[in-house]
Structures are given as C-alpha cells and as structure tokens.
C-alpha cells in the first residue's frame, strides 16, 4: 500500500493547488498507515465505549435498542475527538507546520487535505464499522441506513470543527483535555441531528430532512472552518 502511494507521488509532475491537496492527503494517509496503532485506536475506543453502555446501564435488548442511536453517536463523537489532538501536533513538533505556513500556496488547501485525511481514518472508518457495533446494541436493522448515512455526512463536520480546536491548542503542551472543552459544545447540533436521523430511520420516518440539515452543517463547515483553522494555526505558531 505504502509503495503504491510513493509511486503515485513520483509520477506527479506539475504541482498546483490541486497537486498540493493530493500530495498532502497522500502524505497524511501514508503517515497514519505507517503508525498502525494510530489507525486502530479510535476504532478500539469506539468499541470500548459502546461496551460500557450495556455494562453500565442495562443489557436488556429493548432498552439498549432505544439507547443505541444516541450511544453510537456519542461514542463516534468521542472517538473522533480522541484522535483530534494529533492532527497538527506532530507537524508542530517537527517544524513541518512552519514550512506549511510559509508556503505561497493557499493555506486552506493543505488544511482541507489534512482534515480529509483525518476524517478518512476516523469518521469514515467509524462509519464502516458502526453497523457491526450497532448490532451489539440491538439497533433494529431498519436503523442501519440512517446510522451509516448520518455518520457519513455528520462526521466530516466533527473533523472540521475539531480541527479548529486542535489548531488553537497546538502550541500548548497539554492541549488534549482543552480541545474537548472547546469543541464539545460546538458538536451538539451534529449530535442532535445525527441521533434524530437514526431514530427516524428506526421508526420508519423519512430521513431526508435530517440528512439535509447535516449536509447544510457540513457545507457551512467546509466554507468557514478552513478559514478559522488557518487563522488559528498562524496564531498558535506565532505565539
């Protein structure tokens, strides 16, 4: 896999903003693939948090089924948050972030590529394993499409907003807890619409409205978050 990526990088000649986007995406994916633990940690965390619910609340199937949409979304949200701290930190520590900020290329391209890479390894991965874990919580089969779709559309927003927190705290030695404090309140709308979508799917109501709202949040996040992330990175590096 890694070799394939390297060869692809070698073939690319002309590097414009699009090339930078692809190069950064490839680089970040490659870095994560070479650090296997980072790849699976959010997934293991996701699984573990889900395990806590039957143990902590009740293993009764009917009850768990009712709890499942919220529990799955909260666990996915926390798992995304867990991996957020590392998004810019390694780049900050080894000086890559300075080089990135001094590039004449538009900053939001690199930022978007990094967030996309983060999402592919957290949100997208969580979306793919979510049905398996949902079965453990007795989520009815009708709820699965709602779960997958809402996670698919909702988790990129989580990555975008979380990256703002990561960028603001990247200069701090212990930013991990602080990120949660900054970002969790901002996650609430996504959580509300996400769980509602799953619940609607379970009860057989139409999902379209919720997914559209999640999509609107994502569009807004795509438009504005890179600006905030870029500004936050400049401020953090400056300090």
């Amino acid at each position, binding site marked *: 896999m890694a070799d394939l990526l390297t060869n692809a990088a070698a073939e690319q000649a002309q*590097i414009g903003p699009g090339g930078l986007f692809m190069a950064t995406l490839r*680089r970040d994916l490659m870095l994560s693939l070479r650090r296997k633990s980072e790849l699976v940690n959010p997934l293991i965390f996701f699984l573990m948090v889900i395990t806590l619910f039957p143990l902590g609340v009740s293993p009764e199937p009917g009850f768990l089924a009712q709890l499942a949409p919220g529990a799955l979304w909260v666990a996915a949200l926390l798992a995304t948050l867990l991996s957020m701290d590392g998004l810019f930190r*390694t780049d900050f*520590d*080894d*000086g890559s972030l300075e080089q990135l900020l*001094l590039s*004449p290329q538009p900053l939001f391209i690199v930022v978007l590529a990094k967030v996309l890479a983060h999402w592919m390894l957290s949100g997208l991965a969580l979306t793919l394993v979510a049905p398996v874990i949902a079965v453990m919580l007795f989520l009815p089969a009708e709820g699965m499409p709602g779960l997958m779709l809402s996670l698919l559309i909702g988790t990129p927003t989580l990555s975008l907003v979380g990256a703002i927190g990561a960028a603001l705290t990247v200069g701090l030695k212990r930013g991990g807890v602080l990120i949660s404090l900054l970002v969790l309140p901002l996650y609430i709308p996504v959580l509300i619409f996400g769980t509602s979508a799953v619940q609607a799917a379970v009860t057989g109501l139409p999902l379209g409205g919720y997914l559209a709202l999640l999509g609107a949040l994502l569009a807004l996040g795509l438009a504005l978050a890179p600006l905030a992330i870029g500004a936050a990175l400049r401020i953090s590096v400056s300090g």
Partner: protein
Amino acid sequence: MSGPMLKVENLFCERDDRVLFEGLGFSVDAGEIVQIEGANGSGKTTLLRILSGLSRNYEGEIYWRGEPIDDVRDQFCRELLYFGHQPGVKALLTPEENLRWYCALHPSLDASRVSEALEQVGLRGFEDVPCHSLSAGQHRRVSLSRLYLSDAPLWILDEPFTAIDKRGVAAKEALIGRHIARGGSVILTTHQDLQGSSAVRSINLDQQGGT
C-alpha cells in the same frame, strides 16, 4: 530592482515581560549575508521568525522590495526559504517523500531535482530509508538539501550548522557563497564564524533592549 530587498524599521518585540529589541532597524541588500548575533535568549530565533512572517507578535515595519510585507505576503513566501530550529522533516517519511512534499508546498521548485539534491548532501542510497532510522546529522542534512533545491532569493537560516560535521559545514558555506554570488541574500544565526565570505555583516542583539 534597486534598493534593499528586506528593510526593517523600528522593530519592537517583547517576550515574557522582557523587551527583546526596541527600535531595531536594518536592511538586507541583494548579495549580502547578515549574521544575527547575541547571547542565548537574546531573541535571535524570535527575530528570524518575525522576519520570515511566522511570528506576528511585533510592532514596527518590515518592507519586502519596498512594499509593506503584509501586502506582498504571497510574493514574499515565493521568494523565501526558511530553515528553522526544527528541521521540518517527518521521521516516518523517507528523505525523498519529505522533499517531494516540500516541492508541493513551493510550486516553483522542480521536483525532478530531488534526487540530485539528496546526492549533494550525501544521502544517496538513503532515499527510501525512513528518516527515523537516519542519524541526527543525516536527519539534519535532509532538511538542508532544501537549500540545493531552492532558487529563492532570500534565505533565512536558524543555526544551519548544528549537528553537521566539518566537511558538511564547508560544503554549506560554499553553497551560501554561491547563493550570494548569484545575487541572493542570507540572514542567519550561527555559533560558528563564517569563513571566507567578505560580505558578512553582523547585527548584535545584546545591545538591543535588555532593560
């Protein structure tokens, strides 16, 4: 173009309740080496970070080719090579991958010269070895190979000679000499004296601020 490349006027910066420099002014012409001197903690790195645009916590004016630097930030970034305290090299990537990403950040660089640059710093044969298994000196040289790639007129180098052996230093000085000869400028900090370059001008930060 006549006039200085980079001009600094009335620069003021304080850190942790301490004035690092105040009323600092100087200019850097084409073909000139400016060496920033000063004791540890006198603000050498801070000054280089301000000049490169990384740090915005200062007061005063900086001009790039006669224009306020904030107005021509993109142009300035295109013409700048910054070599910081941290090498900006990813330990998990190979030297070649590191340089390729750097080329993507700077579209004017020719990515096909990456292997040539690595050869220049003596890293031939290490192209596909992850940087974390290289020695400290080799690690540093991965970063320095950017100097061979770059055609940026202004180089800002923060301690470029640490963790590099004597022969490497000589090669680096020759490189800086070539850069000056083709009309580039260098602003650097170093604990070593630069040999054989007549155009070195130094700015001492110890006389600045320090109240």
